[in-house]
C-alpha cells in the first residue's frame, strides 16, 4: 500500500510544501526563481537524455527547440490575454488566463515538436557526427529566423508575459508560476518514464545498440526516430515556454549554443540513459551555478574544470546508465515508479 503510493505522496508533500512556503513568502523570490529554473533544467536534461542517452545520437542543438517553444507560447499568450504594442488589446478576457495557461505551454511544446522534424527527417539517412551537425545547424537556423522577424522584436527580444501571471494571480491568489513549473516537471518525468518503459520505447534502446540489427528485427526505425525526436524537442519546447514565463522576457540570444552546451553537460554529468541521473544532475548543476555566482567570470573556469576532473575519475557520469533503484536496491521496497 505504502509502496504503491509513496511516490505520489512524497511528490504531493514536496510540491505542497514549496507552494505553501512560496505563498506565505517564507522563501525569497531569488530562491523561488532558482527552484523554478531547477524544474526547467530537469525537463531539459531528461528530454535531451532521451535522444543522447537512450537513442544514442549526439544532438547538440537542444536550445533551438526550447526557443521555438518559448516564442510560440509567449506570443500566443500575449496575443490572447495581454495588452501589447504589437498585438493590441487582448482577444479574450484575461480572467480565463488561468485555465488556458497549461494549454499555451502545451501548444508551445507541440510547435517545438514539429520543429523537431527539422532534425528527425534528415536522421533517416544521416547518422552520428553528421547528425550532430544537423542539430547544430538547426539551432542556428531557428535563432536566425527569429532574429530576422522584426515584428516580434527580432534580436531585441519580446516581453509582456508578466501580465498573464498577474492576471492569474488576480483570479486566484496563489503563486501560479511555481505550481505550473512543478506540475509540468512531474508530467514530463512521468511521460519520459512511460515512454521509455513501453514496448515502443524498447525500440529506442534497440536503435542505440545497433540500428541495422534493430531494423532487421522488425523495428520501424524511421518511425521511432521521428517520434523520439518529436517527443524530445516537444519537451524542450515545454521547458522553453516555462522559461519564458518565469523570466517574463525572451530574446533569441539566450537560446544559443552555450545554452545547448549547458544542457549537454547536465546529461553527461548525470549519466547517459539514466532518468534519475538526469534529474539529479540538473538539480546539482543548478545549485552549483548559483553557488558559484559570486565568482563571476571565474565561475566559467571552475565549472568546466570540475567537469573535466569528474570525467577523468568517473567518465560515465554520476549514475552511469543505472537508475536510483539499481544503485540502492533496498529503496525498491519503498517505492514503485512507473
Amino acid at each position, binding site marked *: 500500500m505504502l509502496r504503491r503510493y509513496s511516490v505520489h505522496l512524497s511528490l504531493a508533500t514536496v510540491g505542497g510544501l514549496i507552494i505553501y512556503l512560496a505563498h506565505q513568502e517564507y522563501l525569497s523570490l531569488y530562491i523561488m526563481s532558482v527552484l523554478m529554473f531547477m524544474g526547467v533544467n530537469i525537463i531539459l536534461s531528461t528530454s535531451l537524455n532521451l535522444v*543522447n542517452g537512450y537513442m544514442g545520437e*549526439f544532438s547538440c542543438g537542444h536550445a533551438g527547440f526550447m526557443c521555438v517553444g518559448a516564442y510560440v507560447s509567449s506570443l500566443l499568450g500575449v496575443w490572447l490575454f495581454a495588452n501589447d504594442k504589437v498585438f493590441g488589446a487582448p482577444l479574450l478576457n484575461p480572467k480565463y488566463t488561468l485555465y488556458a495557461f497549461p494549454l499555451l505551454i502545451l501548444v508551445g511544446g507541440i510547435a517545438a515538436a514539429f520543429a523537431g522534424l*527539422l532534425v528527425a*527527417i*534528415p536522421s533517416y*539517412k*544521416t*547518422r552520428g*557526427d*553528421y547528425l*550532430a*551537425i*544537423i542539430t*547544430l*545547424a*538547426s539551432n*542556428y*537556423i531557428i*535563432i*536566425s*529566423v527569429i*532574429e*530576422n522577424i522584426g515584428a516580434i522584436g527580432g534580436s531585441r527580444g519580446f516581453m509582456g508575459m508578466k501580465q498573464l501571471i498577474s492576471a492569474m494571480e488576480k483570479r486566484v491568489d496563489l503563486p501560479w508560476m511555481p505550481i505550473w513549473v512543478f506540475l509540468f516537471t512531474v508530467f514530463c518525468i512521468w511521460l519520459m518514464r512511460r515512454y521509455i518503459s513501453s514496448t515502443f520505447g524498447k525500440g529506442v534502446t534497440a536503435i542505440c545498440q*545497433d*540500428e*541495422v*540489427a534493430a531494423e*532487421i528485427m522488425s523495428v520501424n526505425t524511421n518511425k521511432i526516430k521521428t517520434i523520439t525526436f518529436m517527443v524530445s524537442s516537444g519537451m524542450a519546447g515545454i521547458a522553453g515556454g516555462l522559461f519564458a514565463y518565469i523570466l517574463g522576457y525572451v530574446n533569441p540570444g539566450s537560446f544559443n*549554443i552555450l545554452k545547448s*552546451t549547458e544542457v*549537454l*553537460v547536465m546529461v*553527461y554529468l548525470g549519466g*547517459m540513459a539514466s532518468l534519475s541521473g538526469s534529474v539529479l544532475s540538473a538539480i546539482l548543476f543548478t545549485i552549483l551555478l548559483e553557488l558559484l555566482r559570486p565568482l563571476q*567570470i*571565474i565561475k*566559467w*573556469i571552475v*565549472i*568546466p*574544470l570540475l*567537469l*573535466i576532473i569528474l*570525467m*577523468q575519475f568517473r*567518465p*560515465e557520469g554520476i549514475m552511469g546508465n543505472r537508475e536510483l533503484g539499481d544503485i540502492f536496491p533496498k529503496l525498491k521496497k519503498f517505492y514503485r515508479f512507473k
Partner: protein
Amino acid sequence: MENLVQNIINALQWGSFYALIALGYTLVYGVLTLINFAHGDVFMVGAYIAFFSATFLLTTLGLPGWIALALCIPLTMILTAMVGVTLERIAYRPLRNKGAHRLYVVITALMCGLILEHANLAIFGASRKAFPPLIAEHVYTIGGVTFTNLKIAVIATAFLAFMFLHWMVTKTRVGMAMRAISYDKFAVPLLGIPLDQIIVVTFILGSGFAGLAGLLFAMSYPVLEPYMGALIGWKAFIAAVVGGIGDIRGAFLGGFLLGTVEIMVVAFFPSTYRDLIAFTVLLVILTWKPTGLFGIAKTTKI
C-alpha cells in the same frame, strides 16, 4: 562583373580562415574520431599569442615590421601547437587510455574550450585588443577590382597549407601512420607504430595551422576579443563536416564553400540573413549527401 570578381576574392579570403581551421578539425577527427570542440578556441588563443609576440617584437625589441612578421609566424605556430598538445596530454589522453565513451571526450573538449575562453577573459579582461600593423598594406586595383597584399597572402597561405598537409598525409611515413590509425586503432600499435606519438603530431599540425589562421585573422581584422574563436570554430566544424570529415580535401573545399555562401549572401541580401541562408544550404547538402562531399559511407557489419 567587377562586383562579382570582387566578391569572389573576398569569399576566397573569408573561406581561407574557415579552411585553415577546418583542416585542424578534420586531421584530429580522421585520426581519433574525436570532435575537438576546443579547436575554435585554440584558434582564438593563437590570435592572442600572435598579438603578444607581435607587440613584443615590435615595441620591446623594436624590430622592423617584416622581420617581426617572419619571427612571429613560427613563434605563433609553435606556441599554439604547444597549447593543443597540452590539451591532448592533460585532458584527452587519460580519458582515451581509460577507454571512455567517445562522447565523453567530446564533452571534455567542449569544457576545455570554455576554460580557454573564460581564462582569457579573466586574465586579459573583456576589452578588445587592437593588433599592431606588421606590414604596410598595399591596395592594388586591376580593372575596378581592388585587393590588398594581405588578402593575397591569406589565400596563398591557405592553399600552401592545404598542399603541405595533403602531401604530408598521402606521401610521408607519418601520414601513412595517421591513415592507418584512422583505419584500425587496435591493430596499429601491434605493427610497431607509436600511437601516442602520431596523435601528438596530429595535434601539433592541427593546432599549428589554427595558430597561423589566428595570426592571419588578427592581421586582416585587427580587433581581438575572447569570444572570437567560438562562433568561427563552430562554423569551421560545420564546414569540415560538409566536406566530409576526416578528409583533407573535404575540409578545404567545405571551408571555401561556407565562405563563398556567406559572402554571397551578404552581397545580395541583408547581412542578418547570413547565418540563416548559410546553414540552410549546409542542411540541404547534408540531407542530399549524408556523409558530406568527400565522405565515404561506411558499411556496418552486424
